[in-house]
């Protein structure tokens, strides 16, 4: 195994949640759901960041975050259709992970302070002036466009790996197995992940319920 269950379920859950976010953001009837889905995504980002330190081998940042030179060389190999013999993310892919995580985190955080100037105020928008909330909202919208671009880049890269370079990455993200992944994950991974998810959810959802206005 290369991808543990938390990485896989997390990935596809986030696909669904972000898909929902793109059409619920501008909908007055769905805006409360949009806010809660954003909080769920923030919880997931927090989990994924912690999992990047205490998770399984290929889930860790140390496994895939590369230096600028490594990232450059990884992109070069990608364009030249050279397979990289790594079980986890390549350094180019690692950059994608960081970009996607960072954008989702920033989107979720700005959303907490955002307002639609009609009926919706983010749960923490009372902490800032209404004009600041307006500025944060503009940034929120800008970030959403950046996220779309980054997702398109991610999907194109995966399509390249999958279609042109014949690497079964999509299957890998479904069943978790990839060439070179010899490890087997036991119950401990399940329990540890559950613990980290619990801590993140308690802190973020609990904290927001305590200080936020819904």
């Amino acid at each position, binding site marked *: 195994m290369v991808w543990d269950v938390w990485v896989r379920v997390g990935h596809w859950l986030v696909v669904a949640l972000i898909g929902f976010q793109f059409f619920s953001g501008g909908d*007055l009837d769905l805006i409360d759901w949009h806010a809660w889905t954003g909080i769920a995504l923030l919880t997931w*980002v927090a989990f994924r960041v912690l999992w990047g330190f205490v998770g399984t081998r290929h889930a860790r940042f140390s496994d895939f975050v590369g230096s600028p030179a490594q990232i450059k060389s990884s992109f070069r190999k990608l364009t030249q259709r050279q397979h990289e013999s790594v079980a986890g993310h390549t350094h180019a892919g690692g950059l994608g992970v960081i970009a996607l995580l960072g954008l989702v985190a*920033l989107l979720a*955080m700005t959303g907490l302070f955002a307002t639609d100037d009609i*009926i919706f105020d983010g749960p923490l928008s009372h902490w800032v002036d209404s004009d*600041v909330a*307006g*500025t944060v909202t503009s940034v929120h919208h800008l970030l959403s466009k950046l996220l779309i671009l980054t997702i398109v880049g991610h999907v194109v890269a995966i399509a390249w790996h999958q279609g042109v370079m014949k690497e079964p990455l999509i299957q890998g993200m479904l069943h978790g197995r990839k060439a070179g992944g010899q490890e087997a994950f036991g119950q401990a991974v399940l329990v540890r992940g559950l613990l980290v998810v619990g801590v993140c959810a308690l802190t973020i959802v609990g904290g927001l319920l305590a200080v936020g206005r819904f």
Partner: protein
Amino acid sequence: MKRVIFGAVSVWALASAAVAHSGATGVVKERMDRFEASKDSAKVLRGAVKSADFAAIEAEAVALNAWASEMLEYFPEGSGGSPSEALDTVWSDWDGFSAKAGDYEMATAKLVSAAQSQDAAATASAFKAVMGSCKGCHDDYKAD
């Protein structure tokens, strides 16, 4: 990393607070306050529509209707530009903007009469129409 990002966002938010709309004065400030009050009304309305509190719906709808009928007076020529979020299209397409203000006035009037008739379904759809008229105008005449 999250803490760093959060810190950066907070600092940037505070910094922009110093230069943003806080500087609004005169008619720009007045209309901003009226729009802000309208948002509060919208929130009260949402709750009141859910609980079919027709007295509360009527009161807020009357307030919105009054604002809708006066709104254009709060957009004199030359009152655009920062810190206002009104787009130049308000004045370059004054007819279109006035028509939207008219739609808003009609939508709020319908909400008033729906509340008076105590018809829950009509009230709910009239409230939706009011919210839609806010959004419809923001899309064309307010900076994103």
